[in-house]
């Protein structure tokens, strides 16, 4: 606003020398600019009042923040939009993807959001969406709560400033997911879906660990370090591949990886790629929660070629994650019950219309990858991947790849003695 006022002053001063014939037009223009500035100053930070509990009106009036969302129901896309008020979503990582996903869900009127991050807002983040320069120095969680509660005071916000990969952080993370005070009647954990919006493998593995232990369905998202590709992935413990079942998939950028100059920088980022991935993530979250359309098991985004490869991955019976194996066992045990339920559902609606393709209005029949018959990729034979994917790194070897010695530990080795031995070396 300061810059605009300075500019206005400069323009006023230049009026002295201007041609009298154009004076009228210049004055009109200046008057309208002053009026705009006055409006901005007057409107200031005004909080909209909370919408009465459990009352998401579908009335289309300009004072109803949910009217366009409730219209989804009127149009038959969503059966019951208002259910969104009952759902809890945990967003891990409030960076370029997580913060934008949080804003989208907040504007959609989600019931409750749990946010996790340990970082602070930096000027270097300003190439991304959501955070503002005046929030530099605040924790990302505090800054997010500030903005989100202004946008929609109806959303219950919980924020956790912690690192989920540390032992303490992880414990708090798990217990916060388990807290059911928002919706005590809910089965399972206290959240409906976990969204992983972190930027590193270690944190993804921690989310994977927590969700496998809690049998909690989650959506993983990611943007490549070169900022030109990304992905989202649905993980249902025991059913689909977990994050440890196979080395992570990456969307091939389509350019020769060896030509990438990685030296000198850790990671690049673009608000566009992150915005697209956040959009895909929240779209699939809404489909999952409100039961419309299809949730993609794995959707890649190659921005250089505007290519969106999809695939499915089965869980790996040889997964190194113990909790994953437990969930796989449960999934197999529950198979008869699942089949019976599916059969009962079919019989209950015998005359029901054959379910056609979900997008019948796809008049161009565009299908990037034929997923009518999704062949779940066998995570073991991980070398065969659909076009457009590669693995980030190889699986663990069965045998040592290096000719080295092992440090056999015998039971009579004493931890204290070993510790003292290292300390002695350290002080020598």
């Amino acid at each position: 606003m300061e810059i605009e006022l300075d500019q206005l002053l400069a323009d006023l001063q230049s009026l002295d020398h201007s041609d009298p014939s154009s004076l009228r037009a210049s004055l009109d223009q200046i008057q309208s600019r002053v009026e705009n500035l006055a409006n901005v100053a007057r409107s200031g930070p005004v909080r909209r009042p909370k919408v009465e509990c459990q009352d998401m009106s579908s009335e289309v009036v300009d004072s109803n923040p949910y009217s366009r969302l409730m219209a989804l129901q009127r149009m038959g896309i969503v059966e019951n939009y208002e259910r969104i008020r009952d759902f809890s979503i945990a967003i891990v990582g409030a960076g370029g993807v997580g913060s934008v996903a949080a804003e989208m869900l907040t504007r959609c009127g989600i019931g409750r959001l749990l946010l996790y991050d340990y970082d602070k807002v930096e000027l270097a983040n300003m190439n991304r969406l959501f955070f503002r320069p005046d929030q530099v120095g605040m924790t990302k969680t505090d800054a997010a709560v500030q903005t989100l509660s202004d946008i929609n005071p109806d959303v219950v916000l919980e924020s956790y400033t912690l690192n989920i990969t540390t032992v303490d952080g992880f414990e708090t993370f798990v217990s916060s997911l388990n807290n059911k005070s928002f919706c005590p009647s809910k089965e399972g954990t206290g959240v409906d879906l976990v969204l992983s919006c972190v930027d590193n493998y270690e944190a993804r593995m921690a989310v994977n660990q927590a969700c496998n232990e809690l049998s909690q369905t989650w959506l993983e998202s990611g943007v490549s370090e070169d900022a030109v590709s990304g992905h989202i992935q649905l993980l249902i413990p025991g059913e689909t591949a977990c994050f440890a079942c196979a080395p992570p998939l990456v969307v091939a950028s389509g350019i020769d990886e060896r030509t990438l100059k990685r030296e000198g920088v850790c990671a690049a980022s673009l608000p566009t790629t992150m915005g697209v991935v956040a959009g895909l993530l929240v779209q699939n979250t809404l489909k999952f929660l409100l039961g419309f359309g299809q949730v993609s098991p794995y959707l890649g985004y190659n921005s250089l070629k505007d290519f969106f490869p999809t695939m499915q991955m089965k869980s790996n019976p040889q997964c190194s994650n113990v909790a994953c194996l437990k969930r796989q066992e449960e999934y197999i045990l529950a198979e008869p019950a699942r089949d019976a339920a599916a059969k009962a559902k079919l019989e209950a609606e015998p005359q029901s219309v054959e379910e056609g393709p979900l997008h019948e209005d796809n008049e161009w029949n565009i299908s990037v990858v034929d997923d009518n018959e999704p062949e779940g990729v066998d995570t073991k034979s991980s070398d065969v991947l659909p076009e457009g994917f590669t693995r980030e790194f190889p699986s663990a070897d069965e045998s040592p790849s290096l000719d080295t010695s092992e440090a056999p530990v015998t039971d009579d080795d004493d931890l204290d003695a070993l510790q003292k031995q290292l300390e002695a070396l350290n002080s020598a």
Partner: protein
Amino acid sequence: MEGWDPNTKSTLTQIPLLTTKAGPRDGTAWTQRLKEEYKSLIAYTQMNKSNDNDWFRISAANPEGTRWTGKCWYVYNLLKYEFDLQFDIPVTYPSTAPELELPQLDGKTQKMYRGGKICLTVHFKPLWAKNCPRFGIAHALCLGLAPWLAAEVPILVDSGMIKHKDDAATSAES
């Protein structure tokens, strides 16, 4: 081991490997793993000392052995540059490597994530993943931190981002 210099490679092969796949939440198995970590760290430190290449000190900062602190240093142009070193053992260890932090260098180099976590080469994670659970803390230091210091300290010194402590002291006194 494509992408590694012969020196790192030969050192690495001499560090004893570990066998127990256990993380800090695994109770007695973690204690077993800790013992292996100590054995391998002791062997690596001894080896460095006998090769006249002693370059770090590290010890557990809590009884659980989940937080480690110490120092590391690098000699450049005959001057020794020393930095605080710290890291946590992640809950998913050893599937994921510890993220090594040099807090004093936070914000001074591009090859670092926020909080002073060093940015490892593209070769580190594949090798770590391939060798889980045989690699431990000593391997992370050898494969991650040693090459990082060798690459970054000269750049940091030459660009004036860091000063030798004697220089810093003189300029502060004057």
